[in-house]
């Protein structure tokens, strides 16, 4: 390290940094490629039939051949996830604001928010499917699991206001609305974004759980429904293809929310600043 720095300090250093970044991307790709190759080899070598374990090549072929069906299902699941996520975001933030304004409401309702959170959604889903139209029930499931992290993170953020800044707002006789707008919400923003990041992934899980629960009963068309349906038909390659799409959807949702969080915080918050500053 020091030898390299002595030789050609600035370029060597930046080269070192970017080399590390390349490794961060390259290594997981190598792992994926070698894992897939080993999988392919094992399936071919032992002549395993596709209804037991399909080779990666077969899964990719299925992904292309069944693309129309899978794409429609993906859109359905993503729409459900999005609806559940937006409802969770709005509901969680709004409820946290109400809790912040009124301790009475908080004391009355918070235990039920916790109960909603700790009861496994997979156990609630069948009940919801009885009382609600299927599409609504699925969205409600996505909402239930996504909403609590937003609520608790926003509450934490709103309560993290700097004592002296609060004193300053009091000194200048800020109204409740001004204190909320200029002090509490900006303080809470990093926490809210953290909550949303968790809620994004959870909404997808909620949607999938509800689709699986609806599974045989309903006329669903989401990706999870496809997985359940393909399972009954022993169409294992399609199960894998649908699973692959679900994982990709989860990754994209997480990456998008992380990007939004980074863009919103990059000028001031520790979490979004580079090491050098």
């Amino acid at each position, binding site marked *: 390290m020091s030898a390299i720095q002595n030789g050609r300090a600035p370029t060597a250093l930046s080269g070192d940094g970017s080399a590390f970044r390349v490794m961060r991307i390259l290594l997981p790709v190598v792992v994926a490629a070698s894992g897939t190759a080993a999988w392919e080899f094992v399936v071919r070598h032992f002549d395993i039939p596709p209804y037991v374990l399909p080779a990666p090549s077969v899964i990719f072929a299925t992904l292309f051949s069944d693309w129309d069906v899978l794409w429609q299902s993906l859109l359905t699941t993503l729409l459900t996830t999005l609806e559940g996520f937006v409802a969770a975001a709005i509901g969680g933030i709004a409820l946290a604001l109400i809790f912040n304004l009124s301790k009475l409401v908080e004391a009355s309702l918070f235990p039920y928010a916790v109960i909603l959170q700790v009861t496994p959604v997979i156990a609630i889903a069948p009940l919801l499917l009885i009382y609600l139209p299927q599409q609504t029930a699925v969205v409600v499931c996505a909402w239930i699991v996504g909403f609590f992290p937003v609520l608790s993170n926003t509450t934490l953020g709103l309560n993290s206001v700097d004592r002296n800044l609060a004193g300053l*707002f009091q000194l*200048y006789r800020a109204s409740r609305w*001004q204190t909320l707008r*200029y002090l509490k919400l900006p303080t809470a923003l990093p926490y809210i974004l953290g909550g949303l990041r968790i809620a994004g992934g959870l909404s997808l899980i909620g949607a999938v759980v509800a689709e699986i629960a609806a599974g045989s009963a309903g006329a669903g068309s989401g990706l999870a429904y496809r997985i359940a349906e393909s399972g009954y038909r022993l169409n294992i390659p399609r199960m894998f293809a649908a699973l692959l799409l679900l994982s990709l959807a989860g990754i994209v949702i997480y990456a998008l929310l992380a990007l939004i969080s980074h863009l919103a915080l990059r*000028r*001031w918050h520790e979490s979004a600043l580079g090491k050098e500053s």
Partner: protein
Amino acid sequence: MTEAALSDVDVSAAGLAVSLRDVTKAYDNGVMALGPIDLAVRQGEFISLLGPSGCGKSTALRIIAGLTVPSSGEVRLSHHEGATLPGQGIGFVFQEPTLMPWTSVRENVRLPLKLAHAPASESDGRVIEALKRVGLAEFADSFPRELSGGMKMRVSLARALVTDPDILLMDEPFAALDEITRFRLNNDLLELWRNLKKTVVFVTHSVFESVYLSQRVIVMTQRPGRLGAEIGIEGPEPRGEEFRTSAAYVEYCRNVSAALAPSYSGKSLL
């Protein structure tokens, strides 16, 4: 603040900026934290409240600012005639810069005006003027994290000055800074005080700082915090680095330290 023995107008007429009478503060458990104290600060005066940590000097300052409600006694402040903006009467500087990290220096300084619903067109000029006074006009668009500790404190000072308050309350504002920065800010503060003719109540635990800055040093005793010895400081005007190295300054520091000693007696410093 029960029955008013003295109205705000009377306080103003007597040439006082701040008047505290029999002010006490008790904790919720009944233990007396402060007082009773009586304090009168003349308009345009620079006084220091000096005392060990935990003697209640910050509490006294917060009571003057209205941030802490006293358990008994009355607090009177003179009001600047024609004052229209709420909070215009008082500027407060905390021990930490207490800036909003999510917004620029300009918006931080603008905050008191914004909270008073001043239109942006009017506040723009005042914000820049306040920043110029502390020598940071070119950093208006920087974010607090990009500034040094001393610069952050200057921003905090600019924010306190932006409403053109009559009274500036400062709670150990330079305690966390290195000595060189602290000396420079001391000089800047004195210059601001001379030019702007504010009343300053300065809380510190530094004997040297209190003597250098103020016209009057009031030593506080501990548990409950009470006002003890009062030492008038007559330095040359304007004060500068010569005063800091003069024999008179050293003499004052010795007297103030002697007055402060009882506050520490009979109690381990650790």
